[in-house]
Structure formats: structure tokens, C-alpha cells
């Protein structure tokens, strides 16, 4: 599989994915969150065979399905998937959060909640982030653990 990424100034980013069969999929992620998809058959450069527009939410659901993550509609609102009694949770650090500029080690992780990774836009995923790593605005914490522990962590995070 070949993936090519280009910036579309003022619009967003464009990913061109060429799959084994030679067909191509073009995905444009708009700055507004909208996604545009185009499908080109092998050998056809000019005219897409099909086109599709998705909202941000639809695109995320599709992404979860494609990634093989079981999707549970009851968790609408949060990006969350469930593995028995354990949950995965993606928690963003928005700009202006009191945690921007502080260390990973300072995060109030209760027993039973584990920080798996730090997802920083424009950087490779940081698995198992070291305690001295600094949090930046736009980071997303990837956590796993029991639902209670994760909820407790989210409450603690809100308090700063």
C-alpha cells in the first residue's frame, strides 16, 4: 500500500492511498473536520468512479469500523471503545488547559488506569510516555483501565 500526503493550503490535507489492486482512494480532511472521499479505478486518473462526503463524526465511526474496533453506539459523545469491563479512552488536552506545559508524571493517574500513549498532532505516536515528557496543547492521552478509574482520572484532570 502506498500513501501520499500533501497539504492543501486553506483547505486541509489530502491523502492518496493506492491499494494492492491498483485502485486509488483520495481522502481530503478539511480544516473544518469535513472529509471528502474519491475512488479512482486502476488506470483512471481524471474521473473518480465514486465520491463521498462525510462529517467528522461519520468519518470517525467509519475509521473505527475499518480499524476493526468494535463500535458501541451507546458511547456516543466520547471516542471510547469497550473491552469487557475495561475501557479505552482518548482524552484531549485542549489549548488553555492547566495541564499544558506540565509533566506526564504529574497526571493524577488512579490505580487501575494506565496511560498507554500520547498522541501529538504532527508527530509519531509516543507509546508509553516517560514521566518527564511535557504535555502540549492538542495532545491526546490514550488511556486504558476500569471505567471507574478512568472516570476518576477525568474528574481529577478537570480540577487541574
Amino acid at each position, binding site marked *: 500500500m502506498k500513501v501520499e500526503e500533501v497539504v492543501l*493550503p486553506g*483547505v486541509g490535507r489530502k491523502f492518496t492511498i493506492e491499494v494492492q489492486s491498483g485502485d486509488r482512494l483520495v481522502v481530503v480532511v478539511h480544516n473544518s473536520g469535513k472529509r471528502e472521499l474519491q475512488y479512482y479505478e486502476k488506470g483512471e*486518473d*481524471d474521473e473518480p468512479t465514486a465520491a463521498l462526503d462525510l462529517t467528522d463524526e461519520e468519518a470517525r465511526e467509519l475509521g473505527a469500523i475499518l480499524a476493526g474496533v468494535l463500535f458501541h453506539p451507546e458511547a456516543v459523545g466520547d471516542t471510547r471503545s469497550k473491552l469487557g469491563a475495561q475501557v479505552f479512552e482518548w482524552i484531549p488536552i485542549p*489549548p*488553555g488547559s492547566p495541564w*499544558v*506545559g506540565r509533566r506526564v508524571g504529574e497526571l493524577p493517574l488512579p490505580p487501575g488506569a494506565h496511560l498507554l500513549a500520547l498522541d501529538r498532532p504532527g508527530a509519531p505516536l509516543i507509546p508509553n510516555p516517560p514521566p518527564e515528557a511535557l504535555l502540549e496543547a492538542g495532545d491526546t492521552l490514550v488511556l486504558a483501565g476500569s471505567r471507574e478509574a478512568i472516570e476518576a482520572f477525568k474528574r481529577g484532570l478537570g480540577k487541574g
Partner: protein
Amino acid sequence: MHPSVEAFAIAAGLLALGAALVHRLGFPPLPVYLLTGLLVGERLPTEALEPLPSLGFLLLLFSVGLEFGPDRLQALSGKAIRAGLWDALALPLGVLLGLFLGLDLRGSLLFAGVVYASSSAVIVKLIIDLHRAANPESEVVLGVLVREDLVVALLLAFLGGQGAGFFLSLLLVLAYLLLARYLGPPLVQFMGTLSDELVLLLGASFTTGSALLFHALGASEGVGAFLSGVIAASLGLRERLEHLFGPIRDLGVALFFMVVGASALALLQEPSPLAILGAALGLLLKLPLNLQGGKAAGLGRKRRVYAGLYLVPRGEFNLVLGLLALKQGYPLVAQVALFLVLVSIPLGAVLIRFAPEVYRLLEGPREKPAKLEARR
């Protein structure tokens, strides 16, 4: 109540009406704002609307700087760069055309800039509104626009002042770019901790302040706003500011285009044939260059035609250049700029909207002889 509220209410209502009408037809609203200004300009107290139109214009250039700054150059693909080179040929050809129209060298350079610059603001909006972002030609067109905006910003800084003002404005541009380069990275972390309101106010005061500073030094205020955008992008504020300023900018830009339409009325009543000739030639000059550029970028026949049509609309920078030309004593160039903007935005919007039909019209009769030749 302040009288400006009444003017604003009428203007916003008229613009909303116009936008609603074209929205049903699947058209972008920008040309309608211009036409609304032309239609009602005489009866509308446009002066009372200030500073919203001026602010809209500065924010427009600010967001062009934000999205089309020098850091985008590195992200450009080779094909966009090749297309940009062909496109840039419009500058020397524009200078020749300017000399042919009887302008001196400075006037010809201004004229060339007016011919060369396509409007990234208008084109980006058209590409998004018409769902063309994923098409192959959009990547090339947007890459070409990055190069154009940087070249025109440099041209504006270069032509902005005369004598001492010229060196001052060049120094100022250099200072801003160095600021972005060296002060940017250490400030990124700090800006992340600021709240949205603070960033909004800081951004607004920085943009308008820079515009005032450039203006005070005899340079173009548009360059000041553009450079503010470039700096904000280097501070890692691109997405945030785009998000925060978007709605304010759109409101201001709508009013700005209406005011431009209103002020164009006087010019249209006594059009100089030379200016019409210049605008028409300027509009035609870029088409073959962009077709050739599309070919260099590896686009197919059809996508080449699309790319050429996409680059028809002229807008923000052409008006800036026109205003500068007027200030420096080249009313002809100012008239050309105004004609170009007034004609090319509605015309470009129609051409882009109906690009598939235009292509079929162009290609229909040509296809048959091509096949015959192939058989021979």
C-alpha cells in the same frame, strides 16, 4: 442609537438576501456581494459601516498569510512547483504588456502584479463550496496560489514605498520574517497556555497594529496584515486563529466586497477603453500559461482546463496593488485592477461552477479531427 447600526442592519440584510438567492442555485456568494454593492451603493451610507469592511479586508489578508505563508512552500509537491513556474511567466509578460499600454517601468510592474495574482481567498472558497477539494487539479491550483501570494507580497513590499519609505518597508518585512523565524519556536509553548479570548484580542490588535505601522511608514498596510498571518502561523496558531477569526472575517469580507462594488460605480460610469483593453488582455494572458502549467504538473487534458479556469478569479491582492497604483499616480492600473476584480470573480465563479460543461464545449468539436489524424 448610533446611525451606523442602521446602515449595518440594511447592509447585512441585503447581503443575506443575495447570498440566499444564489445559494439555491449552488453558487458561491462572493460575486453577489460585489453586485449588491454596485446595485445599491449610491443609496447606502457605506462610510457608516466602517471599520467593519476595512477590518474584513485586513483579516482576509491575515488569513491568506496564515494559510499561504512561506512554510507552505516546503510542503509543496514538485508538480505544483512546476505549474507555479509557468504561472509566474505572467509577471514578465505583464510588464511587457504594461509597457505596451504606455506605462513606465514602475507602472508596468504594478500592472504585471495585478494581472499575475489570482485570489486565493476566492478560489479556496469556491473549491470548498463546490466540493472540488479532492480533485487532482485542486492540489496544483492551491500550490500555484502559495507561490503567487508570496511573490506578490514581495512585490508589494518592493513597490510599496518610494525613496526612504522603500528601504523602511523592506527592513520592516525582513524584521517580521526574522521575528517569525527566531521568536516563533520558543513562543509556541507559551501561546498554547493562553485562553481563546486572549488569543482573539491579541491577534486582532497585532494584525491591525501591524497594518497601521506599515501604513505609517508609507508601505502597504495589506503587507502588514499578510505578514501578521505568516507570524501567527509560525507561532503554531494556524488552526486556532482560523477557527476564532473565521466568522468575523467572513462578515467583514462580505461588507468589504459590497463597499468595493459601491465605490466602483463612479469608475464604471466613465470607463477608459485602455483600462478595459488592459483588463481583458490580463485576463486572457494567464489562461494559456496555466494550461501549460497544468501539463507540466502532469494533469490530464480535462484537469488542465479546470486548473486554468480555477485561476481566473482575481481579488484581494489585486485591489491592494490597484490602491497602491492609485496612490503612486497610475490611475490606469487602478482601473484595470478594479475591472479585473469586478469581472473575474463573477465570471470565474460561473466558469468554475460549470467547468465540466465548459470542457465539453471546448473539447467536443476538437475530438473528431484528433481521431482522424490518429487514423492517418
